[in-house]
C-alpha cells in the first residue's frame, strides 16, 4: 500500500508540474493551451536524445530540454496565441490544437513513431521504508514537485513580477490602468509554465515510455487537474494534482486499465457539486 501511495504521489507531482502552465495561461489569458502537450513531449524527446547521443547525464539533459522548450513555446506564444487574446475561446482551442497536430507530426518525422524507453537515471536505486522498497527516483520526483510548489509560492507572494501576475489574475484592467504592461508579464508566466511542462516531460520520461502521442493522455489528465482545482487557482491545482494522482494509483492497483478513466469520473463528480464559471 505504501508503494501505491508513493506511486500516486509521484504521478501527482508530475501532473502538478505540468498543469501549472495550463492553469496560469487560462487564468491570465483565458486561453486553453493544447500546445502545452507539445512542449511536454518535446521535453521528453530531447532528454532521451541528449542522454543517448551527447552525454549520459540526466541532469544536464534536463537542462538542455528546458532550454529547447522555452524558445519553442515563445514562438508558439508570439505567432499563435498572442493573436488570439481577447477573442472567442473556441478559436484558441482550435488553433492550439492545430499547433499540437503540426508539432506532434514533426516529432514523428524527426524521431519516428515507435515508443522508446528511457532507463532510470538513478539506475534503480531505492530506499527501504519499513517493509517496502521505494525507487529513489520517484521520491526525487515528489521532492522536485514540492520544491516547485514552494518556489512558486515565493515567486507569487514575494516578488514584484509574481505579485503583478497575481493581480492580473484578479483583475487585468485594474492592473493595466496602473500603467503596467500586463501582457509582457503574462508572456513571462507563459514561459515559466512551458518550462515547467518540459520539466514534467523530463521527469515523466523514465517512468513511462516515450512516444509521439504521450502528450495527449497527460494533457487530458492535466485538464482534469485544472478543472478540479479551479481554473487559475495555483494552490487548488496543487491539491487536485496530488489527489488525482492518488486516484490513479489506487484505481490502478485494483484494475489497471481503468486508472486514468477513473480521474474523469472523479472530475465529473466534483463538477456536479462544484460548478465552474469560465
Amino acid at each position, binding site marked *: 500500500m505504501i508503494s501505491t501511495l508513493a506511486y500516486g504521489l509521484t504521478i501527482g507531482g508530475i501532473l502538478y508540474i505540468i498543469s501549472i502552465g495550463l492553469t496560469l495561461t487560462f487564468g491570465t489569458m483565458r486561453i486553453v493551451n493544447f500546445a502545452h502537450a507539445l512542449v511536454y513531449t518535446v521535453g521528453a524527446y530531447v532528454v532521451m536524445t541528449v542522454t543517448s547521443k551527447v552525454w549520459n547525464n540526466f541532469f544536464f539533459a534536463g537542462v538542455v530540454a528546458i532550454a529547447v522548450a522555452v524558445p519553442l513555446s515563445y514562438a508558439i506564444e508570439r505567432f499563435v496565441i498572442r493573436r488570439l487574446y481577447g477573442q472567442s475561446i*473556441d478559436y484558441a*482551442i482550435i*488553433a492550439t490544437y492545430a*499547433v499540437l497536430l503540426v508539432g506532434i507530426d*514533426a516529432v514523428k518525422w524527426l524521431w519516428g513513431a515507435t515508443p522508446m524507453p528511457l532507463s532510470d537515471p538513478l539506475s534503480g536505486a531505492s530506499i527501504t521504508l519499513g517493509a517496502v522498497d521505494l525507487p529513489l527516483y520517484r521520491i526525487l520526483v515528489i521532492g522536485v514537485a514540492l520544491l516547485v510548489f514552494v518556489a512558486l509560492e515565493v515567486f507569487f507572494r514575494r516578488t514584484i513580477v509574481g505579485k503583478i501576475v497575481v493581480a492580473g489574475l484578479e483583475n487585468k484592467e485594474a492592473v493595466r490602468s496602473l500603467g503596467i504592461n500586463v501582457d509582457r508579464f503574462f508572456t513571462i508566466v507563459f514561459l515559466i509554465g512551458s518550462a515547467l511542462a518540459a520539466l514534467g516531460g523530463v521527469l515523466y520520461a523514465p517512468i513511462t515510455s516515450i512516444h509521439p502521442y504521450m502528450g495527449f493522455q497527460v494533457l487530458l489528465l492535466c485538464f482534469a487537474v485544472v*478543472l478540479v482545482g479551479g*481554473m487559475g487557482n495555483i494552490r487548488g491545482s496543487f491539491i487536485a494534482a496530488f489527489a488525482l494522482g492518488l486516484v490513479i494509483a489506487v484505481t490502478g492497483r485494483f484494475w489497471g486499465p481503468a486508472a486514468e478513466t477513473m480521474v474523469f469520473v472523479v*472530475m*465529473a463528480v466534483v463538477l456536479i457539486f462544484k460548478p465552474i464559471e*469560465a
Partner: protein
Amino acid sequence: MKVFDLSALRRFDLILIGLLFIGLGWLLTIPRTTDFIIFCIFVLAYDLLYGYMGRLSFGHMLYLGVGAYAAALSAQHLSANPFVALLLALVCGGLVGLLIGPIIVRTTGACFALINLAFNQVGFFMAVTAFSDWTGGEDGLSAFFDPVMGVNFGKPWVVFGLSLACLLAVVYLMKRLIASPFGILLRTIKENETRVQFLGYDTFRYKLVAFVISTAVAAFAGGLTIVNYVFVTPSFVDPGRNVEVIFACLIGGAASIYGALTGGVVFMIIANYLPNHIERWEMFLGFVLLLLVFRFRAGLWRYIAALFTRHLGKEAVL
C-alpha cells in the same frame, strides 16, 4: 435560416441538395458518397451545438460511437432489422445526452469542450476495455442486417438512398428547428446567456434540449455508419478524431446548414483523396486549421454565397 436570399432556389433546396449528392455519387462512386452523406448528418448535429448554441464540444465522437455500438449490438442481439438498429441508436444517443447533459451544459467555453473530451475518453475506455466482452474490444464487432420487405441493405445504392433520405429529413427538421422560437432562443443564448435569463427563460432547460437533440442526431449518424459498414471498431469513439468534425464545421462555415453540408463534403473529399498524396497528413490538417482560424473564419459557404450575390446582383442575407 438566414442563407443567401435567392428565394426561388431556397424553396427547392432539399431537391437541390438531393440532386447534388446524386451527382456526387455519380462522380465519386456510390459507397464513398454514402460516407459523405452520413458525415454531413454528423456535422449538422455538431453544428447545432457549436454554430447555433456557441458551445464547442471536443468530444462529439462519443455520441457517434454510442450510436454505432448501439446499432451493432442491436443487430447482434435484438433484431436484424436496420430500422430497429437506427431507432435504437437514436434513442441511446438521446439517453446518453440526457444522462451526462445536465453536468455538461452547465459549463461554457473551455470547460464545455474539455468535459466533453473527458467523457469521450471514458467512453473510449468503456468500448475498448471495460465492456470488451460486449463490444469486441480492439477487434470490433460485425453486424448483419436482413432485407426488409424485399429491400436488401447489403446493396450500396440502397444504403445510399436510405442515407440521402435521412440527410434530407435531418436538413428539413434542422431548418424548422432553427427557424422556430426555440432556435432563435438558442442563438440568443450564444450571443448573451445572461440576458436570456433576465428575460425569464430557464436557459438550462433549452441548452439541455439542444444538447440531447445534438447527441441523438450524432448517434443516428453513427447508426447509419454501421448500416453502411456492417462493422464497428473503437475508432468510432476515438477522441483523437474529434478534430475532424470541428474542421468540417469551420471550413464550411459555422451556424449555417448549407455551410455544414459544404464543410462535410469538402472535408470528406480532402480526407479521402489527399492523404494518398500528402505524406504529413496531420501536419497538413494542422496548418489548414490555423489558416482557417486566422484568415477564413467565415467558412467556404459564405464566400460562395457572397460570390453568388455579386454575380446575380441580388440581396444576400447572411
